[in-house]
């Protein structure tokens, strides 16, 4: 029996290993300084890079984080502190539903409310769509983390004359912070690679743009565009882009690990 389970365990990691090996083989050779610093070249010319898409992804993730993190953390703190409240129960349920929402639906939704009324695609709409995806992830993770803070600490703060809100923020949230940061990084890693919500929002852009009210390039979109094009040169760049995207996600995940293990304070140390 344990042999079968062991095999299952190996099979579980096989896709990742296969994917990484393949990506390295196809994409690694195309990654050079130019890939990070240059714009795409016209069809037929070799070389060029995806600087605009890398910067675009960073901007999108930044906008998403600016919305997803504060809202998610606030909601999570509320859920943990008001466990039994009726509002808490419904918010918890709805946030689980939102968590399971297909990302393409989120994209259409964002298009309907943020793109159509304005009349054009924009980085802001893309960032908001990603931010909306982040909220339930951060909410639930924050709730879990805050719940691990012992009641005794909360009581100790109250007994010192801390007002309730100050206890929540200065003592409880601060104590749970390493765990919350980890969860936030995992959420960022998760949305950084999303493509579907960006299709009708950020849309992608072949040119350099950092403006929030204009269409913006993003790594996943660029990979999508290049992969379906009929040019070998673009395929090559798509592989390279995929590798960079994976590396980005991996680095964020490792960072999350590192934060969890960092020494100073926090729950579970």
């Amino acid at each position, binding site marked *: 029996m344990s042999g079968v389970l062991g095999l299952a365990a190996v099979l579980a990691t096989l896709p990742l290993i296969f994917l990484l090996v393949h990506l390295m083989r196809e994409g690694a050779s195309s990654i050079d300084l130019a890939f990070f610093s240059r714009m795409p070249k016209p069809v037929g010319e070799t070389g060029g890079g995806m600087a605009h898409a890398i910067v675009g992804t960073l901007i999108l993730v930044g906008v998403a984080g600016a919305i997803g993190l504060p809202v998610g953390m606030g909601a999570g703190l509320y859920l943990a502190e008001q466990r039994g409240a009726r509002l808490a129960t419904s918010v918890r349920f709805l946030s689980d539903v939102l968590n399971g929402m297909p990302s393409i639906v989120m994209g259409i939704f964002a298009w309907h409310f943020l793109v159509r009324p304005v009349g054009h695609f924009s980085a802001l709409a893309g960032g908001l769509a990603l931010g909306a995806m982040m909220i339930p992830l951060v909410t639930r993770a924050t709730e879990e983390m805050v719940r691990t803070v012992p009641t005794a600490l909360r009581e100790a703060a109250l*007994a010192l004359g801390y007002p309730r809100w*100050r206890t929540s923020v200065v003592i409880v949230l601060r104590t749970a912070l390493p765990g919350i940061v980890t969860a936030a990084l995992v959420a960022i890693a998760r949305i950084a690679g999303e493509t579907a919500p960006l299709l009708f929002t950020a849309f992608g852009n072949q040119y350099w743009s950092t403006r929030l009210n204009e269409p913006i390039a993003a790594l996943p979109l660029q990979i999508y565009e290049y992969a379906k094009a009929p040019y070998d040169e673009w395929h090559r760049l798509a592989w390279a882009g995929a590798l960079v995207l994976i590396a980005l996600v991996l680095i964020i995940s490792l960072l999350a690990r590192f934060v969890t293990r960092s020494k100073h304070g926090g729950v579970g140390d």
Partner: protein
Amino acid sequence: MTDHVATLTPAPPVTRESRAVPDARPRISVRKLDALFGSNRAVRDVSIDFPDGQVTAIIGPSGCGKSTLLRCLNRMHETIPLTSVNGEVLLDGQDVYARGINPIEVRRRIGMVFQRPTPFPTMSIRDNVAAGLRASSRERPSRQREDQIVEESLNRAGLWDEVRDRLRDSATALSGGQQQRLCIARAMATRPSVILLDEPTASLDPLSTQKVEELVHQLRGSVTVIIVTHNMQQAARVSDRTAFMLLGELVETAPTSEIFTTPHDQRTEAYITGRFG
């Protein structure tokens, strides 16, 4: 049980270095106090005086309501959902449950230390002691003044010499006993007139317990101490007066020496002599 209201003339306690405070007026007077969890009355019609500058121990078997009574004194009981309190708790003659009294103000004037040490894990030793001074964003003392208070409080808690070289270290690096004394220092830093100790040595080893008991002994005179314990020997060692509770009721309050030698109530005697508990 109203006939067992404590008398205001304390007999000289026969504890070591008898240091009875003459004419100790009550710092806290509890009048007809009920504390409820939902509809369950955990504390029933308790009236008791805690004389100024003295150490009063509250003893009784598990679940007798002694911790709940303690938590009513600084309005911590109400922080638990679905609880309520009836009756009066007079701190220097002022009912802390009166309309318009802010529980936060009450808690700043009455320090509390819990069963398990509760240092804030994200703060340094120094910041833990100063935590109470930063409870409100207004009226924070200067950095210099804060340093002074931290040293003073750690000194009073007998911890200064042990931690003076590592004030910036995390408080979780301290031993359990040190953590508990740190919590006492933290509670003392805001200069409360009363300090509540809720089984402060329950999770400590004998040596650390002894240190905390010595500390309680030193605090007496300058602070009113109320200590909940289910360890009768501890009550005998550290307190001037002892109150015995049973099933939510206050059975008897008397000078400690008297309670342990000539208790008036049969139930007290039965408990003291170990017939139940």
